[in-house]
């Protein structure tokens, strides 16, 4: 990080990101809304945010936490609870007399509340759990996520969480489309808005990572003892990273709720955490660009490109053997193994997009080898 660092790669990066946003906007206006592409883009944006938030913790601070699904659940529920229109509450909370909450807040406020709720839970969990190290911490956070899932399905909390029934009818991504009086969509924004939401959050995380605090996080990751000897308060900084990461996981949970249009606690399983962990590992632990890139890749593979493997395919008179439900996951696993074999440190390693564009960086890395 020399002071004389060239600005050019940064400008190219900004231009690239802007171009992607414009391309998304144009694609949305011109292509049919039912295209699989938009499903992938929407879910990819949600997963990108959650993966980057997990990377902030696992990749940049060196805290191996597996509680992401739990924090997403908290965020998703907080969002749902605060945004279901009052008129719809009687039908959503049909077993709980319309529920206890009888007001709504604007979507953006609800998303921030979702983040804050997740951060608050993280703060409480962090008090005992952050004293643990590596595997023990992972197990403790994983356990927490399972407990949260059970608690949110508990009937006693029904008036708030709707028990084990789903929350629905809250604003989703499709509500961002601008419609005319007769209900026809004039401007499609249902993909661009999640992109902007995720983009703003990821930009905030990147700013944090490159600030004095981000450097302190990386110092803790590299060497706890040395970091402490440099006057960095471990407990304080770890808690900070844990809460901030959970905040954005909560926001990501709110976005997932919007994507799914319904929320049910039982879908936030540890398998979801593993999916996100997989994205982080494939993208490169310690690379924001890698996490974003691999989340789109992961979602595209699992939702779209490999779907055909789950169905019977007949070419001419020949029925392709082996293809049936579940075969997709086999192929998917093989692909992941290949990626891990050939990109041992993930697709991006710990490099970011501007690093790839900078010749100096290349030279520096090259000189090390």
């Amino acid at each position, binding site marked *: *990080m*020399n*002071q004389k660092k060239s600005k050019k790669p940064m400008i190219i990066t900004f231009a690239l990101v802007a171009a992607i946003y414009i391309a998304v906007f144009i694609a949305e206006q011109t292509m049919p809304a039912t295209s699989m592409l938009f499903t992938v883009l929407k879910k990819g944006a949600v997963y990108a945010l959650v993966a980057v938030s997990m990377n902030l913790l696992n990749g940049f601070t060196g805290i191996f936490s597996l509680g992401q699904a739990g924090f997403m659940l908290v965020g998703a529920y907080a969002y749902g609870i605060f945004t279901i229109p009052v008129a719809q509450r009687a039908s959503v909370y049909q077993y709980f007399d319309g529920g206890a909450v009888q007001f709504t807040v604007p979507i953006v406020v609800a998303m921030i509340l979702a983040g804050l709720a997740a951060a608050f839970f993280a703060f409480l969990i962090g008090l005992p759990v952050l004293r643990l190290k590596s595997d023990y911490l992972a197990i403790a956070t994983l356990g927490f996520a399972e407990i949260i899932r059970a608690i949110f399905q508990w009937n006693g909390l029904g008036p708030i969480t709707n028990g084990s029934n789903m929350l629905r009818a809250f604003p989703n991504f499709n509500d961002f489309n601008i419609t005319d009086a007769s209900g026809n969509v004039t401007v499609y924004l249902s993909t661009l808005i999640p992109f902007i939401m995720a983009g703003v959050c990821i930009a905030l995380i990147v700013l944090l990572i490159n600030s004095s605090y981000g450097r302190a996080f990386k110092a803790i990751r590299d060497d706890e003892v*040395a970091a402490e000897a440099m*006057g960095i308060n471990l407990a304080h900084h770890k808690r900070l990273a844990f809460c901030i990461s959970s905040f954005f996981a909560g926001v990501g949970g709110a976005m997932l709720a919007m994507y799914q249009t319904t929320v049910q606690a039982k879908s936030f399983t540890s398998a979801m955490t593993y999916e996100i962990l997989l994205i982080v590992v494939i993208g490169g632990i310690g690379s924001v660009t890698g996490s974003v890139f691999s989340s789109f890749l992961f979602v595209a593979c699992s939702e779209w490109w490999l779907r055909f493997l789950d169905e019977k395919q007949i070419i001419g008179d020949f029925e392709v053997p082996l293809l049936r439900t579940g075969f997709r996951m086999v192929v998917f696993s093989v692909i992941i193994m290949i990626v891990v074999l050939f990109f041992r440190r993930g697709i991006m390693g710990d490099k970011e997009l501007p690093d790839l564009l900078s010749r100096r960086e290349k030279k520096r890395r090259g000189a090390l080898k």
Partner: protein
Amino acid sequence: MSEAVKNQQVLKLENITMQFGGVVAINNLSLEVNQGEIVALIGPNGAGKTTAFNCITGVYEPTNGIVYFHGEPIAVNHPQGKMVKQYGGINGDLYKDRKPVVHTPDKITQMGIARTFQNIRLFKSQTVFDNVLIGTHLRRTSNVLTATFRLNAKEEKANREKTAKLLEIVGLADVAGELATSLPYGKQRRLEIARALATDPTLLLLDEPAAGMNPQETDELGEFIVSIKNQFDLTVFMIEHHMNLVMEISDRIYVLDFGKQIAEGTPEEIQKNPVVIAAYLGVDEE
């Protein structure tokens, strides 16, 4: 203790005992380091030198005794719980009535004690520049929000300038953009010292700064330590095995053997001390 003496006395260990289970690593160690001095702590391997450093910097909580820094007690303890029965040191009931004082290492660093490590502990994945820059984090006035939104630009700029200046002083300005671990060994040692200086210390603890250096590098290091001591108005307390370096730059020397202090004095006195020669120089370092 008069005020003037207190100000003179940067570091004082009083009856420090450190016991791990049944092993007494340091037994009733008392020493003083005065303003502007370079004091060396020497002794054979396993004598308890690094343990003494860890007691000062808060990594360990001493079992018994008091550590003063500028007259302020920064660590106070007496045998408690199971240790009351197990205690193998002396003066075990001297501080019975004193309330234990414990600080975490980061708090101690904030008070103005910076240290380096015996086995170099640099931030491996980061550049030389960032390694030193991290040392400025503890004097921040920004919080996480102002830092994220870049409202601390002035402070950040000042820190970067300070870092650049420090690198200039230690002679690493030309490799500021390199990865810390890509530097040769001697430079890594210097970088560790630069990083410690970035925390604005008044007392610098060096744990074997010349370990693994050749004679020429060791000579240079000696000059370097004296020069930064004068430039930053520091007091230096160091552990070292290179006797040439120790005899050349230290004002006073403490000798430790099996956790006990066996001698104290100027380099000349230590060189002539028969106990030291028997325990250390004569036997271990032929």
